[in-house]
């Protein structure tokens, strides 16, 4: 019995150690790779928003997949604060401004705004009111700009 308890404790201990190591590895991602990763996600947002923006302008009538596009943007929006860990301000070409780290609460709030507006966009995309959908696409784009204004150059 005694041996078995010890073995369980050992396994549990090992598991904790491994989790800790995994956490350390994640925190130690190279800044250049972090920048590459987050740029890919921002590009995803750009492409989804850009396509929906054409619908909002009234120049195309496509709206297939808008629920999924909005859902993707919503999922990415929740990752934004984690995509900008301390130290990821250099290492590769980035337009991230120092305010991301010096005004962290404002930055998190700006990302949260995109989460809120994209959640409303999912609802609007599921609905049948095209004007409401157009207005919510605009509101979501303004949430993008609201963050870029303070936290991104250009």
């Amino acid at each position, binding site marked *: 019995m005694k041996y078995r308890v010890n073995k369980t404790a050992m396994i549990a201990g090992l598991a904790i150690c491994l989790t800790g190591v995994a956490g350390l590895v994640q925190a130690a991602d190279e800044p250049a790779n972090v920048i590459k990763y987050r740029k890919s996600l921002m590009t995803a947002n750009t492409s989804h928003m*850009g396509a929906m923006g054409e619908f909002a*302008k*009234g120049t195309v009538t496509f709206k297939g997949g808008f629920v999924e596009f909005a859902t993707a943007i919503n999922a990415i929006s929740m990752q934004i604060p984690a995509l900008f860990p301390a130290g990821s301000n250099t290492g590769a070409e980035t337009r991230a401004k120092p305010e991301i780290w010096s005004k962290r609460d404002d930055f998190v709030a700006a990302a949260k705004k995109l989460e809120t507006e994209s959640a409303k966009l999912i609802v609007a995309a599921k609905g049948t009111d095209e004007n409401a959908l157009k207005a919510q696409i605009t509101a979501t784009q*303004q949430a*993008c*700009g*609201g963050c870029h204004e303070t936290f991104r150059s*250009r």
Partner: protein
Amino acid sequence: MKDGDPMTATPANVVLKGLASVFAIAGAMLAAAAPAAAQANADAIKRGEYIFRAADCAPCHTDTKNKGALLAGGRALPTPFGTFYSPNITADPVNGIGKWSDGDFTRALREGVSPDGSHYFPVFPYTSFTLMTDQDIKDLKAYIFSLPTVALANKPHDIGFPFNLRFLQVGWKMLFFTEGVYKPDPAKSAEWNRGAYLTEALGHCAECHTPRNLLGGMDRSRWMAGSIDGPEGEMAPNITPHEATGIGEWDDIDLAYMLKTGAVPGGDVVGSLMAEVIRESTSKLTDADRTAMAKYLLSLPAVDHKIEKPR
């Protein structure tokens, strides 16, 4: 009727009645005039608010970064010549412009001259506001004077010699400033002229989007063709309809939508100072005005001028 009845038409009564009528009419006129004046002022304030938005006064005259009060000034405006601090333009009589007459205010915008006769530095875009109509200038003042006053003293500019010498501005103006209200081009449509007025006079887009020479004068041969050293060290893109280096692939719908939302074709949403312009100014305009601006900008000569930071 009995003698002494007030209604008896004796000569004296007629005079009295006449006087009473005159007073009654005068009183009624006065009573009517007061609300009419108040209404006229309310209308001016309402029009002025739109001008205030279109001219984007708030961002430069408010130190938003440090949670400063609206129009109380103090925003740092870094330029190649040093850092300017915007003045308080609330109607505070001591620190702001509360004592200014309509004439003072018009002169400041039209001529770039303060009430005490000194010349403004062109960081204040009187070079564009000179094109504004008298009516718009008066309405703008009415709106600014309807806002809360703030007793905040102005911060002196931090600029080096010799650029700090205000009298040199006389020479600068001779070289680079043309005074005068916008003259509509009769050969163009009303929409085009409206777009030109909004873009050049109120929006003062050229101030950032036109490259400047060593003395800070705008290069008129490359109007709106972008600048690598725009405000706050940012690049201002080429917004002429040049296919490769400007916005030649955009149409007026794209540009009007960008002015509303910040979203450019392809989906990126502009940041930094242009995001501020959109939030404070162009997103508050009517769709018709944004479309007029877009059509005007796309009618400008395409200038081949690639805006790229040297690496």
